[in-house]
């Protein structure tokens, strides 16, 4: 067992973990952060995507011990003060999800993608999401959601009202 201390969704946590424990297992099994899910065992699907120090990682590809001393943000920590993150809002607005299983990963990847490239083209969005699989939406509305989030970045909730 190895002791790790990290910040997850703004909360300081300390645990003893097996060195082989994956970050995604740590989040789900130790912290009950079940918003982050496991969709495959070959790091292809991206459903487990979280942010490590602000950059997206597949949390099945990171050991919990590697997160020691770092800051992790999951889908559960994205909304602040009850206000949805603009990317969350965009996915709902554009029907960018159906069963919702890939959605936490898609949203976390999108946030990172837009941080790197705030005004992507459709082709750039599609390439940027290549590591995240979805079986329901055919990606059409996911791509639309990302472009919508980019277009409406910086707007307040009030400015977007009336959309629903």
């Amino acid at each position, binding site marked *: 067992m190895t002791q790790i201390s990290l910040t997850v969704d703004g909360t300081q946590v300390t645990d003893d973990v*097996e060195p082989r*424990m994956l970050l995604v*297992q740590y989040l*789900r*099994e130790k912290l*009950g*952060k*079940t*918003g*982050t*899910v*496991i*969709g*495959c*065992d*070959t790091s*292809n*699907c991206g*459903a487990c995507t979280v942010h490590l120090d602000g950059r997206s990682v597949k949390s099945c590809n990171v050991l919990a011990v590697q997160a020691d001393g770092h800051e992790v943000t*999951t*889908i*559960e920590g*994205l*909304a602040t003060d009850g206000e*949805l993150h603009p990317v*969350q809002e965009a*996915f*709902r*607005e554009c*029907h960018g*999800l*159906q*069963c*919702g*299983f*890939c*959605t*936490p990963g898609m*949203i976390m990847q999108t946030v990172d993608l837009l941080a790197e490239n705030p005004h992507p083209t*459709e082709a750039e*969005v*599609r*390439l940027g*999401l*290549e*590591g*995240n*699989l*979805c*079986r*329901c*939406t*055919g*990606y*059409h*509305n*996911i*791509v*639309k959601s990302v472009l919508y989030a980019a277009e409406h970045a910086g707007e307040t909730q009030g400015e977007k009202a009336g959309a*629903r």
Partner: protein
Amino acid sequence: MTATTEAPAATAPAPEIGRDRRRKEDQRLITGRTRWTDNITLPGMVHMAMVRSPFAHAEIARIETSAAASAPNVIGVFTGADFGDELGVCINAWPLTPEQVTPNHSPMPADRVSFAGEIVAVVVARTAAEARDAAELVDVEYVELPAALDLKEAAEDTVLAHPDAGTNKSALWVFDSAESGTGGNVEEAIEKARTDGIVIEREYRQQRLIPAFMEPRSVVVDPTGEQLTMWSATQIPHILRFALAATTGVPESKIRVIAPDVGGGFGGKLQATPEEWITWAVARRVNKPVKYTETRSESLLSAHHGRDQWQKLTLGATQDGTVTGFKVDLLADLGAYVAIVGGGVPVLGAFMFNAIYKFPAYRFSCQTVLTNKAWTDAYRGAGRPEATYAVERMMDELAAEVGVDPLEIREKNWIKHEEFPFTTVAGLTYDSGNYEAATAKAKEMFGYDALRAEQKKRRDAGDPVQLGIGISTFTEMCGLAPSRVLGSLDYGAGGWEHASVRMLATGKVEVVTGASPHGQGHETAFSQIVADRLGVPFEDVEILHGDTQVSHKGLDTYGSRSLTVGGEALVRAADKVIERAKPIAAHLLEANVDDVEFSAGTFSVKGTDQGKTIQDVALATFAAHDYPEGIEPNIDAESTYDPVNFSFPHGTHLCAMEVDTETGRTTMRKYVACDDVGTIINPLIVSGQVHGGLVQGIAQALWEEAVYDDSGTLVSGSFVDYLLPTAADTISFDIDHTTSPSTTNSLGTKGVGEAGTIASTPAVVNAIVDAVRHLGVSDITMPCTPERVWKAINTSSSTGGPTEGAAMPHFDADESGTSSTEGAGA
């Protein structure tokens, strides 16, 4: 004088049906507040890991479990022999014929394994990791048996998948229009066409696919309460409960099945699985809550696959392209067992090979065949994609033979809009449709003529990148299904759906449905229907589902049935609420019940400004201080709706593919879908269903295939090898709709869940073939990989050839002396 009347009506909500409501489901899903089965943790819960056979066919000589049993924190290790009949069996609910050969399907056989991935032992431990570690220590000695793998060879009984069955041929199911009196004699029609018309003969391969829902299957069983509770990532909680009771001896009244949040299914979670049955048995044995969650690799290996057919097709026509007969001979691969619907899947297509056309003679036969591969069952479309592919490919071949535009040949043969209702050669009565309208709109959206002109220009110029246009004018039967029809087909259940509507004292509405959503958006669409029907706010309607203690009756979600069947049950239950409330409203209004009418949520007295909202009536009924003599103080109601017919969505899909003739690479340039799904409840949800369906169908055409090697190992057994499309592989689509409402349900809905998948596969392949037909290509086997396309163009193989066992070679077989592990450290 009426200007001030009906004040309550002024606050009635605007119509909900047709409105693009954002989904109620999403708030939880986008913030990670989810209830996937794998999220469930119960006090004292233990975990399971499976030991699976690496061999396709083998006798189990010995299983040594002692090392695993003594591993850290292991609670127990069990084999099939430890349980016997207590395990129950996996059921086949649709025996095609009385003579069907149906091998006994134990969830964990003790004597012989029949496919690679079959479970032979299970380890129970305090954590999932410890269970998996210990599973590695279970030592199983197998005696390998020859395996029946290739479908055509298996049909010849050269090697038996189940030696004691004596044959691999499970059932032969035939429909003949001459014998059933729905049409002419197809043999005569084809013979005549051989003499003075056109005969097209083709054989198409429907490759094996994997549903690959994003949420791996998971099951939790809690045996500690008075009722045994199973949570499962399933599409069919109600059917599961019935099957558990029927096969494990636990009374149905002692079983509660819950489908919590379910992450996709596409037919893949329409199953009673070995994993569920083993978890059930283990939980009862260890008397603790038990969880099993499969890995993705286990899912690809052992969750049921889809499609896998050979289609032998003969189409007769006159010289001008009027079809005179269509004969279909199928070989369908069941895999190792006859699954819950199993052989019924190709039969669901039996009524659809004639599609939208007025074929005068038709014959369908399907031979189902057992092999030593993973079992097959429903995958999005289930039988209808196969049928649509076959007929839409054949119509293109006929057009090429006649030398006319493929749209022209379709128009010559399709049912005209004024001919509805139309009884087809397969004996179904299509209630409504307008193929002309959908096609006209699709052509306009597509820019059909301009793309044809560009195609010609590129062809004339000898452009290395050729353009092809693919057409699919599809229909499907959905809304499964009239119970009597299912009975006549020997299906083991009915096709009704149940709903109940409960008016709460505070005016909120609880709706219970027997449909079981897993991503479609039932909560939103059903709320819209009930809000309109009862005249209550959308937000005030709560849809409850997926828990057999809440939703006690239901037949779950598959076959695009939730809206057409389940939605109609909702409508009828809501209407009964209004009828029950009416005498109470009349009583409160001191009016004769015949003078009371209901509109937009308010009961009012004709010709007056007197009114009571349905919420007022609900509260008064709850208080029950003042209601008529002789009735119960209750306005809740339920309905069990048995559909009178299937529904028949249709549409015209047009696809433009660019094919690089030098490399075989294909690129989708444009895809247009104009679907007629009847009345649309929520256009946002409908468009989402179409988009997702399209990509699954396109993926069959271009990418996906479950491939076994010659020893029966699934070589596409992970997401590295099974090619699920990504955002970077796909394009944005142009979709729209025409509307001819169904005449067999109140709302006029037709179902949309499977439409995109059914329509798109032939549209894509037709486009690719169209791009290179002038180079001598008349077919390319799916998936149309660049290699196949290149081979079809450049070699004598006109179809690009079969998929080799090593579709994704993991090492170079030519380098002798090199194995997959040697040299790793070099």
